[in-house]
């Protein structure tokens, strides 16, 4: 079979930092972004500018570092979020809306129509500043598939570059992901990025199965750090995509030890011995297995 290449949207600096009690200093953020860039990561989700001055300072540092990777700001579909990102100097904005009825009704206390309209206005606002927009569908795994596609259609019509499918509480299993994405990918007008959480230890597998079914980008964090049990791990997804699936990803796996040390030092955590790829208990040197 033809070897496929996927891209990584790394969110260590955004979702990774949202793991409770974690704060990266501006210098940490710059160092990590630089290391990700050097490893060949093409998209870096750097943070949430609306959080305040400290975050904005860090964002400006990264934006002015002259990295090759495209630097993305995360936004809700809220005017203030977008204005904060724009004023930092971002030209790539990710705009996230919840798409499950559970989230729409119980968190936002709004309707599907409201969300659609709000998303439209937010995309247009971002574009009025010349920004390139990607759209995030939060809690897509518990939402109506048709509504996800409706969001994707509107995003595509307005010129968004891709849509993120988020398994916000990590409730998918790989075989389910396979059947969902087999149906979803041919019908989705935009390239799909997958953002899987690790609540049942399935984030890597769910990500890989979605990629194998046609998703084009994977959202990951170094060491899988993130909300609750974390996210799909950059080093595991990239290595498995190459070794197990026999495909390609232009990321230099020699950089994984350095990246993981950098991130773990910044969050003041040790790597669990039994964490694949970066844990000390593993005797297989996966990097040597990559053709």
């Amino acid at each position, binding site marked *: 079979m033809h070897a496929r290449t996927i891209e990584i949207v790394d969110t260590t600096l955004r979702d990774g930092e*949202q*793991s*409770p*009690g*974690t*704060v990266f200093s501006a210098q940490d953020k710059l160092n990590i972004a630089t290391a990700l860039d050097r490893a060949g990561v093409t998209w870096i989700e750097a943070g949430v500018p609306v*959080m*305040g001055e*400290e*975050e904005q300072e860090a964002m400006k540092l990264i934006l002015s570092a002259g990295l090759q990777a495209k630097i993305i700001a995360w936004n*809700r579909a809220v005017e203030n979020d977008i204005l904060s990102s724009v004023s930092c100097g971002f030209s790539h904005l990710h705009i996230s809306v919840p798409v499950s009825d*559970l*989230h729409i009704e*119980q*968190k936002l206390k709004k309707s599907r129509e409201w969300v659609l309209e709000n998303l439209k206005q937010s995309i247009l606002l971002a574009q009025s500043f010349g920004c390139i927009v990607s759209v995030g569908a939060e*809690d897509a795994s518990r939402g109506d598939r048709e509504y996800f596609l409706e969001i994707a259609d509107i995003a595509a019509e307005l010129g968004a570059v891709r849509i993120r499918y988020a398994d916000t*509480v*990590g*409730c998918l*299993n*790989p*075989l389910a992901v*396979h059947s969902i994405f087999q149906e979803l990918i041919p019908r989705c007008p935009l390239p799909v990025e997958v953002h899987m959480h*690790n*609540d*049942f*230890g*399935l984030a*890597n*597998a*769910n990500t*890989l*199965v979605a990629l*194998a079914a046609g998703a084009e980008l994977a959202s990951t964090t170094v060491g*899988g*750090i*993130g*909300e*609750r*049990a*974390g996210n799909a*791990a950059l080093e*595991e997804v990239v*290595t*498995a995509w190459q070794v*197990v*699936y026999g495909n390609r990803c232009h990321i230099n796996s020699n950089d994984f030890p350095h990246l993981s040390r950098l991130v773990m030092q910044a969050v*003041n*955590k040790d790597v*669990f*011995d*039994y*964490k*694949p*790829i970066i844990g000390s*208990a*593993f*005797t*297989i040197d*996966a990097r040597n297995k990559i053709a």
Partner: protein
Amino acid sequence: MMWIDQTLQEGLRKRSSRENLIQVLQLLESLPVRAIDCKVTDWEKCDLPRINSSLKKRIRGRINGTVEEVELAYKFGFQKIIVDCEPHLGQGLVSQVCSALFAARKQRMNIGICIENASQFSIDEIAFLWRDIPIDKIETLAYGDKDSLLDPLKTSQIMILLKQKIPVPLEFHGHNAYGLATANSLAAYQVGVKHIAAAVAGLGSNGHAALEELMMARKRLLGEGMADTSQLALICSQILTRFGLTVPKAKSIIGQDIFAHESGIHVDGVMKNPLLYEAFSPEEVGLVRQLVVGKHSGTASIQAKFRDWNIHLSPEEGNALLKQVRKLAVEQKKQVDDPVLFDLYRSIKSSVPSQNLSS
């Protein structure tokens, strides 16, 4: 359904003390593992006693395909054994393994066979190896993915085909070099493989499927089995402690921090309905929900903290406090603990309120 424990074996491999190993054996009684694997030679090296009658049913000796090891297993009183083998392509079972199988049958042991490198072979090659087994009454065939070659979809396809070719119960023994062991094992289970090797927190040489992940995935994602799991985090943590390990705080299912919420959006959501940002409730695995105040907090979480302390915060106070919280969190590079939060509040408030902190 049958989980086959590989946790104890990791302790044996690492030469944990006899005392710790025996405690782990006892702790495993509180988990739904129906068999506990251990290498017979490691059992001897760790100076463990002869298997008593209560253990006989639960413990299974792994044998490296030699007659000497069968004899050792017999000496220690193992009733159940599994013979490990790693055949070469096209060569069938070596005579040594066949002799071991004959020896085990002579001792009337319950015998399983494990092809550790099964994922290197085609279905037909495995069926051929199966026909090569010189004795009948083999109770189980374990399919090993020693080199972590499989992905979930491939695993399910292989298991479906293999079930049609092999007349005894299949067992799946995955490894975790690329982080797919739990997923592969769950996929095997979903297509009807009922015996699955797993270890607490995925311990093992090149890792295993994590037992706690499989238990909860089965219960919550597949809606099967209503086992009480309210002690799960505690037991798993006690087992790891015996081996000198600590459960990582963010470890799925059993980590101390997996129900700690900090970001404004999540805290706001969890207060409206925990289901918004939790896949299951903390009580279900014996953990507790925590609201952490830090860089990513919104006013909702700060309001909630002060509500708990019976202090009403005006929106202006909330906003002022939030600014301070974010600034401090960035300065100290961590969350803002409750007493510090309260100090911040006092510093922005001219008159100190008389309420006491309740906790």
